[in-house]
């Protein structure tokens, strides 16, 4: 699409130069961490150690990391059923996240929320949401609140392209635009809404939708963390500057099933397609290659990062497996504040 920032343009973007080498390495580490976290989650599921299901973020790491890199710790995000990546990128720690996914007491929500409701207000994460489109109002309201309280906080609303089917998104985009709210709608188009190719359930032009409401909108290569970061920086600047909402349409792909149990996917997509994205459009590879070409990192530095992440994940899952379950009398606590 015309508005899509091409790799070459991205490489020239002035915002890139303002990012320190350490920050690039931190972004890389975060992306590696998200992937390793999700692989570990998959293993917990397959080995029967995790209750329920989980929706993995593998393949989409550049979006959460690129967006959150452009945010301050006191900025807000809202997340989705596929929310582990957002949570980590905004600053949550691996051990307490695993604990939450296992329903354990030290989990971020005392085990009451689980994968689909994990929230960490301390890092600005107002929560994952298991209702598709369910947090679009919350994010927009957080932006209204920031504006009313006179802070310059920004709110980011992450959602999948499936949420374009939910009417509330259009209701709140209208209000965000009317009231020039500092909210950024980040649509992660990973090509599928559950088991259905998105084009079978979506008419017209996605970017034209926010634009019809007077919202600045652009398409972004969701596999290139640099492109996501540049677009996010600009959207954040608009928001903080009082210019109102933005909409970033990030094109991406989920590598694995809709959820951990979605193993046979042949009836809705081909192995070749999956392989193509993995080999040609992998966000970790794209960033690693560039870091090496830019001499920001070499193979050894990257391997050190991988190693550090592996250890963090191993320690985190260990912590969670050993953690106690919540006390039974917690069951009717926190119904009312």
């Amino acid at each position, binding site marked *: 699409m015309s508005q899509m920032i091409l790799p070459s343009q991205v490489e020239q973007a002035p915002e890139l130069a303002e990012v320190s080498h350490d920050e690039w390495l931190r972004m890389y580490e975060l992306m590696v961490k998200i992937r390793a976290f999700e692989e570990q989650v998959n293993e917990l599921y397959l080995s029967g150690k995790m209750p329920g299901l989980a929706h993995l973020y593998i393949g989409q790491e550049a979006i959460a990391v690129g967006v959150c890199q452009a945010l301050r710790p006191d900025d807000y995000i809202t997340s989705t059923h596929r929310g582990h990546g957002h949570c980590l990128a905004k600053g949550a720690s691996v051990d307490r996240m695993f604990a939450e996914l296992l329903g354990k007491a030290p989990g971020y929500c005392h085990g009451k929320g689980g994968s689909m409701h994990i929230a960490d207000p301390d890092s600005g994460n107002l929560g994952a949401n298991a209702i598709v489109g369910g947090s679009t109002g919350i994010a927009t309201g957080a932006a209204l609140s920031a504006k*009313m309280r006179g802070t310059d906080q920004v709110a980011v609303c992450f959602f999948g392209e499936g949420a374009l089917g939910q009417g509330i998104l259009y209701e709140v985009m209208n209000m965000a635009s009317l009231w020039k709210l500092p909210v950024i709608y980040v649509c992660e188009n990973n090509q599928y809404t559950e088991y259905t190719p998105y084009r079978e359930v979506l008419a017209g032009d996605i970017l034209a939708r926010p634009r019809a409401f007077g919202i600045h909108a652009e398409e972004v290569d969701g596999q290139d963390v640099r492109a996501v970061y540049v677009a996010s920086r600009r959207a954040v600047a608009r928001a903080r500057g009082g210019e109102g909402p933005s909409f970033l349409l990030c094109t991406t792909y989920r590598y694995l099933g809709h959820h951990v149990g979605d193993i046979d996917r042949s009836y809705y997509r081909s192995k070749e397609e999956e392989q193509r994205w993995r080999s040609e459009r992998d966000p970790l590879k794209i960033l690693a290659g560039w870091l090496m070409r830019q001499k920001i990192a070499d193979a050894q530095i990257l391997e050190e990062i991988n190693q550090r992440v592996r250890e963090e994940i191993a320690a985190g899952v260990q912590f969670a497996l050993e953690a106690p379950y919540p006390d039974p009398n917690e069951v009717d606590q926190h119904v*009312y504040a």
Partner: protein
Amino acid sequence: MSTPKTSTPSALEKGTREITMAQAIREALAEEMRRDTRVFIIGEDVAEAGTPFKVLSGLVEEFGKERVIDAPISEAGFTGIAIGAAMTGMRPVVDIMFGDFITLAMDQIANQAAKVHYMSGGKLKVPLVIRTTLGATRRSAAQHSQSLHAWVSHIPGLKVVLPSTPYDAKGLLKTAIRDDNPVVFFEDKMMYQVKGEVPEEEYTIPFGVADVKREGKDITIVATSSMVQVALAAADLLAEEGISAEVVDPRTIVPLDKQTILASVKKTGRALVVDEGYQRFGVTAEIAAIIAEEAFYDLDAPVKRIGAMDVPVPFSPVLEDLTVPTPEKVAQVARELCGRR
């Protein structure tokens, strides 16, 4: 928080004034908005228009359009926005013009507002008030006449308020705004012009404290919102026949003051529950079931209940009037319960 146990504001020191229900609500909002800059109002036609019921008239003049926000006709959207604002430091009061329209915002109310605190393990709070209406006989037909408070009462995490007098409305709304939970506040649209005494001085009324609106000894009539006046009128009719009815108004149904209700029933031995929601699977069922279970050994007769007739509210006045409980109907059932014909 001052906690007067009865509806007799004259007991308070500084004297009283007579105001309408609409004024009571407006005063509660104005006082809380002066007291706390985090409080704001959002809804359709709330600013200059002051809502079609004119309940909010004058507020925009004092607080400006930034705190009395005219929203598009987007009940789900602005309820969601209010939830997000509540989670991040504000204390919104949402105006949903007719109670029938909560249908449009039920996901935001029941799946989001009600659950955020619990799902986050207590970390996030949603100090939100949703003001909306109930009540029929306005000749507004099936989609503008319902009393859907049973729905929200069913959902853990929500509190539900049903004021029946200006005094209760003002004191309970102030409490609702100060509460850290989502509270759904139902106003009987036919009662906005009803007058009553309120204290000159500031006051609040705690949740979960029923009010005995009339004392009696032969039968307990538990009545909510619009039905309190109906029950009181029925009690007058019964008194003429020598039947002494006690009228208990729970005022909030979540939390519900079981103690006061049960104490009354244990005293009278007979109970009738009256509410304007549809009877089937409605509010009367819960209260009747509680009484039937917990006062079983004190009951001299079965617990009866009267809700709205289980039909969509018809437009034609001759039909609509048949669907809501009336003093005559309430008195009739009470009379039968007391073994009279």
